[in-house]
């Protein structure tokens, strides 16, 4: 096995750009790794070997001709969640209804990756239409957690997170609607970032819930996530909710943080996140992380966000409502699956959607249709939108006392495959701590905070105000550097070798 796959994206970029190794060698090393372990991990739904090698060769040609690299990540491989459209690869969103579909256009995020010279290795597994917290709701079978292959890698972006933890790719992209980047990061000992809503274009991102969805970087280090963040973020006129503001300088912030001093930074511990319902090993890891932040010079303050306890309820009304509307586009007429030769379009639609959607998608469509029904709208959807306002106000008040807020990312470590698949409400509880950020449109990330007493990774969530990514990266990088120094190396190097 090539040692190249153990390197960070920053290290790979340095070696490629100085022509110590070629981008093609780096791509091939990762493709070999995928061939060796993905039969077990199942992080990928599609591997684009040929396109990856062609893209990498173009980077090598440019460097050989003396052209400056297109970006700091030119030639570095990446695994793309199968929810972003790609003109040269199938795009399924983990659903049978889009089996084999080839999109007629690239997502803006895909275009940016290509322009940056990033090598796209393939498309990663996910819960169908990003609905789920374990990747078990993929129509193409679950992804396995490299730390313990009988366990889930989190979801919905379990494929992207598992690809990182299994050293199949140094970088990945996910989407976070209620925690789908951060919770898988916590479950796999990797880093996952949910940028400010509107920070990364949603053009060509197949919608789950449009007011909540946000693409974001996944990596094995905070610094690598920052490099990818600056490649994918920025204003896009093709997305009407894109923010027309400069991208926060997160690479510089991560470098500043890695120097290890957090003097003058106020870190708020949210009283309502971290008590009841959190596994003991998760709580102790979080408490140790807070002590670590204090040692780095941060001022620790306790804050209260009294409406967060209603976040899950509001989210599971708002999200299904948007889902029921967004997924109406899968009508068996213009693209995707068509089932049945019924006499009417309505019969064909109903038969196709029944055959093409999995149980969780159907549940959420029905729930959303209910919440938006005449007579129920005010009590459910309308009231949930008011609670959303109160949660945003809780954040605003907390951010007057603290520069960032912290909590455990997820209430438990990775659970066994099959454990919660038939208990939707138990599955939803995974997102307790991550949902408020999506409702408020603010930024947050998950950074590894060690292993719990069960030997599985735990994530520390760092939350920041809208467009406050710089301080969030700074705090996470400082914490990561301190942990690595204490542990004698990055946590991810302790992941067991994946059984063949």
């Amino acid at each position: 096995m090539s040692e190249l796959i153990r390197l960070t994206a920053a290290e790979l970029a340095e070696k490629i750009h100085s022509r110590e190794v070629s981008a093609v060698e780096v791509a091939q090393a990762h493709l070999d790794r995928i061939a060796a372990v993905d039969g077990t991990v199942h992080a990928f739904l599609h591997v684009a070997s040929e396109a990856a090698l062609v893209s990498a060769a173009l980077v090598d040609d440019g460097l050989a001709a003396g052209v400056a690299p297109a970006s700091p990540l030119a030639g570095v491989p990446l695994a793309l969640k199968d929810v972003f459209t790609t003109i040269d690869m199938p795009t399924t969103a983990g659903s049978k209804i889009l089996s084999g579909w080839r999109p007629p256009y690239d997502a803006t995020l895909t275009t940016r990756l290509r322009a940056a010279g990033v090598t796209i290795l393939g498309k990663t597994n996910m819960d169908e239409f990003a609905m789920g917290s374990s990747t078990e709701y993929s129509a193409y079978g679950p992804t396995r957690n490299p730390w313990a292959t009988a366990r889930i890698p989190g979801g919905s972006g379990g494929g992207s997170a598992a690809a990182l933890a299994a050293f199949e790719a140094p970088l990945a992209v996910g989407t976070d609607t209620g925690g789908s980047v951060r919770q898988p990061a916590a479950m796999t000992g990797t880093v996952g970032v949910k940028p400010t809503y509107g920070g990364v274009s949603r053009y060509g991102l197949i919608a789950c819930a449009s007011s909540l969805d946000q693409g974001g970087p996944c990596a094995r280090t905070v610094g690598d996530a920052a490099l990818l963040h600056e490649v994918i973020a920025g204003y896009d006129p093709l997305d009407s909710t894109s923010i027309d503001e400069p991208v926060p300088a997160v690479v510089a912030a991560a470098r500043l943080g890695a120097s290890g001093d957090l003097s003058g930074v106020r870190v708020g511990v949210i009283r309502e996140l971290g008590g009841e319902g959190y596994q003991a090993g998760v709580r102790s890891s979080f408490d140790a992380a807070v002590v670590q932040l204090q040692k780095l010079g941060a001022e620790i303050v306790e804050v209260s966000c009294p409406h967060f306890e209603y976040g899950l309820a509001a989210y599971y009304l708002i999200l299904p409502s948007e889902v029921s509307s967004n997924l109406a586009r899968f009508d068996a007429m213009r693209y995707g699956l068509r089932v049945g030769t019924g006499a009417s379009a309505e019969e064909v639609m109903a038969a196709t959607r029944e055959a093409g959607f999995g149980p969780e998608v159907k549940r959420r469509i029905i729930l959303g249709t209910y919440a938006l029904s005449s007579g129920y709208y005010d009590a459910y959807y309308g009231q949930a939108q008011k609670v959303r306002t109160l949660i945003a106000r809780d954040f605003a008040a907390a951010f007057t006392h603290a520069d960032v807020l912290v909590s455990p990312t997820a209430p438990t470590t990775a659970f066994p495959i099959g454990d919660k698949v038939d208990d939707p409400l138990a599955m939803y509880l995974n997102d307790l701590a991550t949902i408020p950020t999506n409702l408020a449109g603010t930024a947050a990330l998950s950074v590894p905070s060690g292993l719990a007493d069960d030997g599985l990774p735990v994530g520390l969530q760092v939350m920041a105000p809208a467009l406050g990514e710089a301080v969030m990266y700074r705090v996470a990088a400082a914490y990561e550097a301190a942990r690595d120094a204490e542990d004698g190396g990055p946590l991810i190097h302790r992941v067991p070798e994946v059984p063949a």
Partner: protein
Amino acid sequence: MSADPVTSGITRDEVAHLARLARLAVTDAELDVFATQLDVILGAVARVGEVAADDIPPTSHAVPLRNVFRPDERHPGLDQEQALAGAPAAEDGRFRVPRILGEE
């Protein structure tokens, strides 16, 4: 549908009605499972009703939405072949679809 939405659950018949509205030809077995599961989920999400929020404005989007314009200039879009490439059925450069208007 009426009754007090915050205290009443959801019935199997209601789930069947909602599935029809959502164009999902669910099976009887699915109806049994979904009715039970959705009743539990609704019981949990009905908690939003505990929050006193009469005077609170609703939030539909975290950032204010405004209309976005672009210059009224020609630029390339999908051609007919690209637009039809993923169609389940096409004929004469158009989408071929089952009958839309009923006989009722």
